[in-house]
């Protein structure tokens, strides 16, 4: 088979991958220690295989601007050449579809994952497997919704959250596809483990004490789940002073800030109207966040 113990995967000594650390022919403890040191240094200098950003859950305190952030990121990812799939996993608020310019309503994904649903027994599925009616598309962006609580006494939201969790876990993405999830406000989804199979958590933080506290909690939970890439996005920032104050507080949580979306009249206007995102500047800010993400931004 080759050289079994090579931590760098060189199948034989003096292969291209071989850095001549000496581990495979070390005879004394000192030689092994030295070889290990060389390996660690080499690996630090060459970033290890980081997983591609493919399943991004956007979280944060209610009202922090998650939906707007998801809409901006959608456009920015599209510009970066990815094929975007957006899932509205928010059980109450219906704004995301409108913001993306989606007409009409998609069937709720929870129908697929109910006890007698089509996907109730499936281990995995891809976008091609999803029956028509569940996926809406506009301008190359595909949109799905988990479902909403529409009626009083409808019951608890467990089945909606469970559907969201199953989608994150079982959806197989093709190369170039990226999944963006607009999550339920706060930490409820984490308590249910919805994000476990996401590879990236973006926490939207607005300049408020509560928002920062929630961000810290989310970060802790994400790390507890073993998700490697967790970052914060500052939203609705109206001034430099506000930005630096919020950043200061955020630093205490240890959360890495990937970018800032400034408060922007145009953006606020469209958020109010619930119409397609109308601010070019904001989309560019989102683009900077994506670059920071894919360069290995994690906390």
């Amino acid at each position, binding site marked *: 088979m080759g*050289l*079994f113990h090579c931590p760098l*995967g060189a*199948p034989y000594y003096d292969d291209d991958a071989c850095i001549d650390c000496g581990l495979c022919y070390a005879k004394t403890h000192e030689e092994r220690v030295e070889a290990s040191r060389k390996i660690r240094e080499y*690996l630090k200098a060459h970033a290890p295989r980081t997983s591609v950003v493919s399943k991004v859950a956007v979280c944060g305190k209610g009202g922090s601007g998650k939906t707007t952030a998801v809409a901006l990121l959608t456009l920015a990812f599209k510009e970066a050449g990815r094929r975007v799939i957006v899932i509205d996993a928010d059980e109450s608020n219906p704004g995301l579809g409108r913001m993306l310019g989606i007409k009409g309503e998609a069937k709720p994904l929870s129908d697929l994952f109910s006890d007698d649903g089509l996907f109730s027994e499936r281990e995995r599925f891809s976008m091609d497997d999803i029956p028509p009616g569940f996926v809406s598309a506009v301008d190359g962006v595909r949109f799905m919704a988990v479902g909403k609580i529409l009626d009083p006494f409808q019951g608890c939201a467990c089945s909606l959250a469970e559907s969201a969790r199953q989608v994150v876990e079982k959806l197989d993405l093709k190369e170039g596809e990226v999944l963006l999830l607009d999550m339920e406000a706060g930490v409820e989804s984490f308590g249910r483990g919805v994000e476990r199979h996401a590879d990236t958590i973006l926490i939207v933080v607005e300049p408020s004490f509560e928002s920062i506290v929630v961000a810290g909690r989310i970060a802790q939970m994400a790390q507890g789940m073993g998700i490697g890439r967790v970052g914060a996005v500052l939203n609705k920032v109206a001034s430099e002073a506000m930005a630096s104050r919020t950043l200061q507080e955020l630093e205490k949580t240890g959360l890495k800030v990937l970018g800032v979306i400034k408060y922007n009249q145009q953006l606020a206007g469209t958020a109010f109207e619930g119409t397609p995102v109308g601010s070019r500047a904001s989309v560019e800010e989102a683009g900077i966040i994506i670059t920071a993400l894919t360069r290995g931004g994690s906390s």
Partner: protein
Amino acid sequence: MTKQADPFEVYAKLKARIEENKFPIEHIYFELANKIFPGDKEIMPRIMARLANAEQAKIVAALPDPDLPAGSGKTLEVSDAFAAKLGMDKAVVTKHIRELFKKGLVFPTRKGPNMARTFLQLHDAALGNPAYNESLGRIYYDLWGFIEGPMNKPAPKDLRSDHTSEVRVVPRWPSVKDVPGVQAFEDARAILKSRDLIALMRCGCKASHTDRWCGIPDESCITLDRTAQYNLDRKTGRKISADEAISIIEKYDRFPTVHLTVNQREVTQLLCNCHYCCCLAIKFAQKSRFVCEVDTKKCKGCKVCVERCQFQATSMKKYDGIEGEKAFSDPEICRGCGSCVITCKSGARTMKLVRPLEHVPEALSIY
């Protein structure tokens, strides 16, 4: 699984077979053997003698080629001067080197063709190619097997508490797929899906234990990335997709196999399917982050798990307040391989996460 054999009996028979088949060895083979296993006058020289004929031995002893132009890159070519010094036709030398490459004795290194540097490298490379089974003969495989000693189960006291190892156990994925906190580096499916390349080949270790009794198919060595490419280049492996690899390991659920890989988070070369009757590495493999647990209410006392455990962690015992004997796995000995969990028909067994992330180092830095 074929009938379990007594490892010491098997070893005694192996020793007898080797004695019977002792053949005289020319001096040059001692020279070659000394390069990687100095001092051994019986086994390694004979292994070399089976691998390389007289002409090939001469070539290997003269490698590396000092006259190879600098910057040749990885190659199996030699210079004209090298062939001339040996008094051989260059085409003949090249042909021999290519055959030795296929056999796993010579490698296309940055310094030109060169012999294996270490014992382990030779072991892993030179046991993989079934195309040479006949010419190497059973004795060749027996010689390799003999070096490892009797293949008995690891004894409970074999691993110290501060044990370090270059290989680690990867749990059988059905046993851990629902445990919260499972990481990609211990999820066999995630490991296979994140590969650039996968090549399936004959397992060398199994080939070297000609009397093995685990029943695991020969073609059970899953090589990855660069190692996969190496084996495709010398035609000892066939390319498979991640999905095929996953269904192969699923087929092995009925065998008490243990997955082993390099003891670091970044899996580099292999995902092995090991058994104690044919793998030495399993004896000192580092535990996974899991141990198994038994729900005594569900346990029916069928004892399948006792048989399945390769580490002697499992036995039947009388629990207080519970009638009859139920299964028990010692968490100190259990290495978290998941073999007993996937075959428990009563669903009495589960895996529990008991060690932190740091237990599996980022890079193989156990020293």
